[in-house]
């Protein structure tokens, strides 16, 4: 839908879009094209000369077992974060949708972790799981579990997944609750009259009807786990121990700013851009489908 009437053309519209276009060009388009250009260069160790090498940086990346490991690790991490946070959110939303009195009170009590910065979420969890002091590692010791995420790879991964999922439950809960509350009550009532119990109603009516929300949230959670979890990783493990939590977005930062491998980091940036574009396309195709419903 577009407007039928417009203001007469003058210099004014150009003036109005100018601030946004200038910022976009200077801070988005130019750096992105620089990243693409740099990804085709190799700089010598002293930064004195650069050589144009076509796709050698990419070739090196894809032959680097560490990069492929990081890639698979990122997929694994995103999947676990999405599954954990969406699973918790759908359970809580399902019960909150059932209780008529208090659903909004529970919503207030559940949505505020959204406002906690990822690095702070990381700090809270690292404090609770501190191997010598942490309250939870103290309890775990009582069960005979020796917690030390500075040494144990799977414990480190578990900790960042928990911290990342904890923060995202709020967002997923909000969308699931809204989706469930928009299902017409008559549908649920009809099923209840036909003798379907609460669990059966959930699986055969509610769950299929909220599937558009589920698809939408899968994309959003993947984007979140890919890019917004940098702060959590940086605060909790710094990619360690032995690179076991080094996900792609952390690797770009680490190789570029700490390792100073400009070409390699730029090539990784380009790959990440392609991933974001793919996710955006998926999201928009889904949004279009939602309009058709």
């Amino acid at each position: 839908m577009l407007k039928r009437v417009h203001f007469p053309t003058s210099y004014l519209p150009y003036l109005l879009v100018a601030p946004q276009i200038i910022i976009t060009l200077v801070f988005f388009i130019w750096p992105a094209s620089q990243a693409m250009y740099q990804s085709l260069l190799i700089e010598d160790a002293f930064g004195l000369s650069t050589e144009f090498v076509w796709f050698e940086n990419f070739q090196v990346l894809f032959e680097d077992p560490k990069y492929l490991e990081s890639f698979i690790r990122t997929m694994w991490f995103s999947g676990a974060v999405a599954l954990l946070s969406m699973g918790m959110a759908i359970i809580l939303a399902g019960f909150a949708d059932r209780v008529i009195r208090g659903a909004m009170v529970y919503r207030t009590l559940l949505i505020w972790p959204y406002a906690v910065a990822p690095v702070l979420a990381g700090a809270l969890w690292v404090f609770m799981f501190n191997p010598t002091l942490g309250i939870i590692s103290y309890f775990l010791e009582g069960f005979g579990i020796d917690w030390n995420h500075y040494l144990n790879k799977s414990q480190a991964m578990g900790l960042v997944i928990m911290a990342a999922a904890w923060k995202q439950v709020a967002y997923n809960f909000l969308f699931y609750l809204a989706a469930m509350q928009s299902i017409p009550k008559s549908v649920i009532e009809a099923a209840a009259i036909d003798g379907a119990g609460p669990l059966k109603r959930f699986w055969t009516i509610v769950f299929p009807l909220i599937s558009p929300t589920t698809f939408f949230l899968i994309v959003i959670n993947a984007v979140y786990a890919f890019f917004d979890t940098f702060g959590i990783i940086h605060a909790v493990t710094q990619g360690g121990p032995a690179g076991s939590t080094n996900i792609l977005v952390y690797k770009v930062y680490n190789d570029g700013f700490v390792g100073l491998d400009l070409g390699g980091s730029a090539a990784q940036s380009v790959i990440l851009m392609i991933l974001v574009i793919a996710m955006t396309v998926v999201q928009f195709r889904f949004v279009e489908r939602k309009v058709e419903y």
Partner: protein
Amino acid sequence: MIENRPVLTFLSHLILIFGVAMIAFPIWITFVASTHTDIRMTQVPLPLWPGDQLFVNLNETLIGEGAAGTNNVPVWRMMLNSLVMALSIAFGKIAISLISAFAIVYFKFPFRMMFFWLIFITLMLPVEVRILPTYEVVAKLGLLNSYAGLSLPLIASATATFMFRQVFLTIPDEMLESARIDGAGPMRFFWDILLPLSRTNIAALFVILFIYGWNQYLWPLLITQDTNMTTIVMSIKQLLESAEATPEWNIIMMTALLAMLPPILVVVFMQKLFVKGLTETDK
């Protein structure tokens, strides 16, 4: 209520309360830690119940020296930096998105679609994927260690422009026709009709963008070397590192609490706007 199942209702409340407790537990532990002395916070097991040092710690953190390892920048200064950054990002994004959406919807001009796509592309370039070259641009412009450098590269946003475009498209054409018959020019129409009509959308977006701006981490981390420009969210990392040598967990957790308080208050007290903003921008 579909049917009366008291046991299930009771179970629902039980599970929800359990869920709330699980979600709130990390914050509770943080709060408890900020109410004890630093000596108590090194004795295992750590307390689960608040102590009586809340105001002592608050005073020490906010005005005093703070924890060791923060290079002695007072916490209030860091909170001020965060506030300036969050407000400039929120106001800046809203302002430039409003006027560019206005131009794209209400004018037909050459290259309109090109501008539209140019803005659209920014959706695909989060700061995390273009950090190094963006850093170089900001360095060349001499904007390191400045509020402009902190906020400008995060200001352009496709989502806000799209949202305002969507809002403007739902405003009936008759509004524009009658405004033009009454002799109103474009800017008059913008100020007196469009802005008042999109007031709640602006407020909802402001809530989301304030949280987004306050919680920025990677970008400020890269471009501020001057400790006077440190934001409060950034400082947590340094504090965690300093905890290895001087474990003043009461002060560290008090700082963390202060760092997350403003956005949490915004979410809790402006919940309606927050939910509206979250669901309408689709992130």
